[in-house]
């Protein structure tokens, strides 16, 4: 919007208001996505209810176009473009995360196509909201200032609240939306309170400045602790860290499954991006708070998530808890962030690596669940019995995703976990080692419930005698194709992902 308004402002008040310098190339993905959003709204307005098919395609194209522009930025711009006084930074880290958001957005659009198209849903608005939320994520990737982080968070959250309740005649969906919303705004409110205190303590909202201001002194004042914890807790909610995870299972279960996939992957990744920005840029100087906090959150999250996941009977709910546990793994490098003598980028890279692989395998898993549910009309694990007989392809794909989630080579998950281990070991602190051991124990527990799904699919006969193969729509096939290929390739040739991740260095560490 600013882009459109700035010249006008300049004419109204020449010499009075000076628009901040904007590198439009660096900004192009966001611009393209915004334009797509506008186009989609327009098309939605001018099409009949039963004729919304084009919107889906349009949204997909818009996202891909935006992705293309991310590529353009990579090629043309230098590796860090700082705008708005450092509040908005386009560096490699941001670009990689943007690409991740756009790709996951695209896959979500793919897996939504038939789900939304065939159900009794508002199709046009659905894609608008998805696009808006993705836009928020793009902004989040670059936001290095409390205000822009807040704006980005709201931009990606508010559409998500609505999406969660999208099946509005379904009580579960309502419940999901309501719970998500209430927890979300409450967490935001608490976070904002923390932000206001931070501003008060430092006099600035730029993360680099905040870091510089709070790094002084050996002992942090109580109010600073309160502020930092409140801010981080807000994003702990977003990434569903225990004990702030409670919304996740209910919301995931109740929301439309593509939305669940979106929340579990893109939204969670956005939360991690914010956390990384905050921890590595904003609070790196206060490792004495951040490290133990993240250690506790990480340990709690992975353990509780895995343990509860053991007892789940609904596959989506199981994925919710599995997602909780995975968040715990990703929090682990944050627990050793800023240990003396180590490059913080190692931790950043490990999380980025994990996020990239996690996105592929989790989205893929949801895609398969959606495809299977087309036949079974259920998300209960037991309903998947015999899947290997009537839908071997789907079952193999799900097996690959689950195996990958369990961290077993040759699928990507192992490298994701490996890079977490790597980060923990690089730190060479007792905290890191203990977390690593905890991670080992947890990955074994996790394997149990992942493999239970495989077991049901492979070893138990189908409930009904209907052995007709599942018809998988092409969009879902494409989604699964992309995710399977990425999952396998990242496992076999991890250099692909590690190469990307290794360039993901945050600009402006520790101020």
């Amino acid at each position, binding site marked *: 919007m600013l882009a459109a308004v700035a010249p006008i402002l300049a004419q109204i008040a020449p010499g009075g208001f000076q628009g901040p310098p904007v590198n439009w190339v660096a900004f192009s993905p966001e611009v393209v996505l915004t334009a797509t959003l506008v186009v989609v709204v327009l098309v939605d307005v001018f099409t009949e209810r039963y004729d919304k098919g084009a919107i889906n395609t349009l949204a997909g194209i818009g996202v891909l176009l935006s992705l293309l522009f991310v590529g353009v930025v990579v090629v043309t711009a230098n590796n860090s473009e700082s705008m708005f006084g450092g509040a908005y930074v386009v560096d490699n880290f941001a670009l990689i995360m943007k690409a991740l958001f756009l790709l996951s957005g695209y896959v979500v659009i793919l897996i939504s196509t038939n789900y939304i198209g065939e159900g009794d849903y508002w199709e046009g608005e659905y894609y608008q909201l998805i696009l808006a939320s993705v836009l928020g994520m793009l902004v989040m990737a670059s936001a290095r200032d409390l205000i822009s982080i807040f704006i980005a968070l709201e931009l990606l959250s508010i559409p998500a609240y609505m999406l969660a309740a999208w099946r509005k005649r379904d009580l579960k969906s309502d419940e999901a939306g309501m719970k998500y919303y209430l927890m979300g705004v409450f967490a935001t409110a608490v976070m904002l309170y923390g932000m206001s205190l931070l501003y008060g303590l430092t006099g600035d909202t730029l993360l680099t400045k905040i870091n510089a201001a709070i790094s002084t002194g050996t002992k942090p004042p109580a109010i600073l602790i309160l502020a930092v914890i409140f801010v981080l807790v807000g994003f702990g909610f977003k990434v569903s860290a225990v004990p*702030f995870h409670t919304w996740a299972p209910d919301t995931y279960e109740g929301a439309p499954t593509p939305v669940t996939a979106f929340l579990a992957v893109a939204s969670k990744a956005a939360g991690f991006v914010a956390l990384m920005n905050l921890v590595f840029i904003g609070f790196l100087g206060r490792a004495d708070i951040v490290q133990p906090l993240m250690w*506790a959150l990480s340990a709690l999250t992975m353990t509780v998530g895995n343990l509860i996941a053991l007892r789940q009977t609904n596959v989506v709910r199981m994925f919710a808890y599995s997602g909780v546990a995975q968040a715990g793994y990703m929090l682990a490098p944050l627990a050793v962030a800023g240990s003396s003598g180590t490059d913080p980028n190692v931790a950043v890279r490990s999380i980025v690596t994990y996020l990239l692989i996690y996105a592929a395998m989790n989205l893929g898993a949801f895609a398969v669940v959606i495809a299977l549910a087309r036949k079974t009309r259920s998300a209960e694990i037991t309903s998947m019995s015999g899947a290997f007989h009537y839908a071997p392809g789907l079952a193999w794909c799900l097996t690959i995703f689950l195996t990958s989630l369990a961290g077993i080579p040759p699928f990507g998950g192992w490298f994701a976990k490996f890079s977490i281990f790597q980060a923990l070991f690089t730190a060479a602190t007792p905290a890191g080692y203990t977390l690593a051991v905890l991670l080992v124990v947890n990955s074994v527990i996790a394997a149990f419930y992942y493999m239970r799904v495989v077991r049901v699919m492979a070893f138990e006969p189908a409930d009904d005698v209907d052995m007709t193969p599942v018809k998988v729509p092409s969009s879902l096939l494409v989604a699964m194709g992309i995710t399977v290929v990425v999952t396998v390739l990242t496992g076999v040739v991890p250099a692909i992902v590690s190469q990307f991740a290794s360039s993901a260095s945050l600009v402006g560490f520790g101020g």
Partner: protein
Amino acid sequence: MDSVGIMDKVFLLPLIMASSFVIILFVGKRFSERVTSSIGIGAVGACFVLSLVIGAQWINRVDNPPTGAAAVAAEEACLGGPGDDPQAREGGGRGAEPGSAERGAPTGAAPGESAAVLGQEGGGSTESPSAEGGQAESAQAKRGETIPVCASITWFETAVSTSQTIKFEAGTVLDGLSALMLFVVSIISLLVHIYSKEYLHDDRRFTHYYAFLSLFTASMLFFVLGSNSLQMLVGWELVGVCSFVLIGHWWEEGNNTYAALKAFLTNRVGDTGLIIGVIVTFFAAGATSFNVFRLNEAALSGKVSSTLLLIGAIALFWGVTSKSGQFPLHTWLPDAMAGPTPVSALIHAATMVVAGVYLIARLYGVFYAGLQINNNTINYVAFIGGFTALIGAGLAFVQKDIKKVLAYSTVSQLGYMVMALGVGAWTAAVFHLFTHAFFKASMFLGAGSVSHACHHTFDMDEMGGLKKKMPITRWTFMFSGFALAGIFPFAGFFSKDEILAGAANGQGGNAYTIMLVFGLVVAFMTAAYMGRTYYRTFEGEYRGHAHPHESPKIMTIPLIILTTFATIGGVVNFPGKLTEWLRLPQTFGGRLEHYVQPEWAGRFPTLDVAEFNPWLATGSVLLALLGMFIGIGWYANRLYERKLTERSKVLHAGYTFLANKYYLDALYENVIRDRGVFPLARASYWFNQYVVDGIVNAVGVGSRSVGNFLYKYLDQGAIDGAVNGTGIVSDESGQLLRRIQTGKVQQYAALFFFGATVLTIFFVVFIR
């Protein structure tokens, strides 16, 4: 000129038999019995001929020993490489002197260390200028030592340390001992092959029987010819397997399979000793070779710690204990009679069971130095041998199964041989091995012939009076029995007498008096039970229900041949003194000693050979005659039918006396025949059944119950339970944690805020 002839090609013998095994096993079924047996007989016949040729060549070699370079080359071949330790020979010579075995050993050093020291020192000993090597050589040439003929190939090579790779060799060794064994094995095997053709006629597994007979012969020849202890271990176990298979030949019946199992397991128990012995001697000899001559050389050199040698010798003897049926592992041998009788003759009388004796004879240096036989203290080997001879003879008394009598007799005679070795009467032991093979095989085959005639029974209660119906069997059995009893001039007399003389003289001039007493008592008992057995089988009235008839020629001819050897075999080691007295040519006496007893300083101890003792000989023969008289008389006068032991107080007392003296054996009789019910009898029977006889069973049952217990409680209970328990605990804690998730959003929010607050408070309180 060194004439080795085909003596370095002896590997051909086992090879021939192995090929015979393979051929019979794979294509035998397609042919008739005739062809199958012909293959086996042909193969073993070829071996027999070869063994004769080899024997002749060996005799020639002894008479014209190699000298100079040829001798050195032969020596190198036998030691598996250049003799890098010429001094060992010298040391060995000293080692023969009393008490010198300990001299070289570092005092107080741990066994392994001393071995290591030895290994490092290699050839260089401080007191050995290199010139001495040449002297030793010429000295040896002068003395005309007969170096064995050896041949070898690399068997496997492996590093024993990071710097040293050793090629372990598989080879053959031909000296007097192995030549003698070749002859014994091949001739008895040949005769058994021939005999079996009729005996096993129309058997359902005729092919299988012949195949394993061939394999057994191959394994036995392999064992005999083995040039190193590892190879002997291989042969040792292979003959054990053949024995297992052949005992279980009629495996449909449970008893046979149990007997086979028992035989194999008991032997396996003994093999533990053999394995450990082989390992210990290997390290004792510097951890470079399993070569038997190297081992003997090291043992006799006196450089090895005596403790280590003692452990090695005892361990090896534990192996001998099982294979050669020594107390307390003798119990499998009588059970092994479940196999076909020719098998009993070949394996469980003549060849396999003497493998233990052969092993001691072959590794005599180790035993000699390890047990300090030269010290004339009662050593373990001699005592166990004597004791076994005694209990074996006692038990033979009371069997009613003719094969069991022979089996216990075999135990007893093996004990005799072992005792002989234990007292240093090496040649006597080997000589007895030789004669025993013939007369015992003859008796077994005779028993088989009897059983063949009497509806396959071995119960002497169903025999009797067969002398008229089966004259050939009767005469051969009788002559062999005389040989066994040691009656002049049968073969057994000479060998037994030599053992007694050895015990009387001992090494270094002192006597093993107790061993001598043992030997004499056993001689008496042997004659007595042989008398009894002979009488019950061939004299009196026929008590069975079959129509006995003489066996066909194919069975009687082997009997005759064997009996011939049993009768006149004694001449091969005719006592030198007797030769003088009878004014026979000097070369007539002591031939076996001359050709078989090694003379290779450093690799074989220098032994004092006992002279013929006329008083001892006469005494022992008289004792034997007395025993035979009593044995026959008891039954000839039908004393047993009058239950004299119960009615006559004198006899009863005598019987009790006997029973108390050899209670172990006599009580077998009491209980087996359900006669006496003395408390002592019960106790002894219990001891017998559960401690001695039941040793394998007890261990088996014991370990099975331990296994059951472990499996049930430790494995499936504790360990598996712990694993599953971990799973259950995590599962349950998951269930517990689920309660957090109440479904009420405000409680979620409360948890959220509570979490944030607690964290904050925690940090404010503890981190600041």
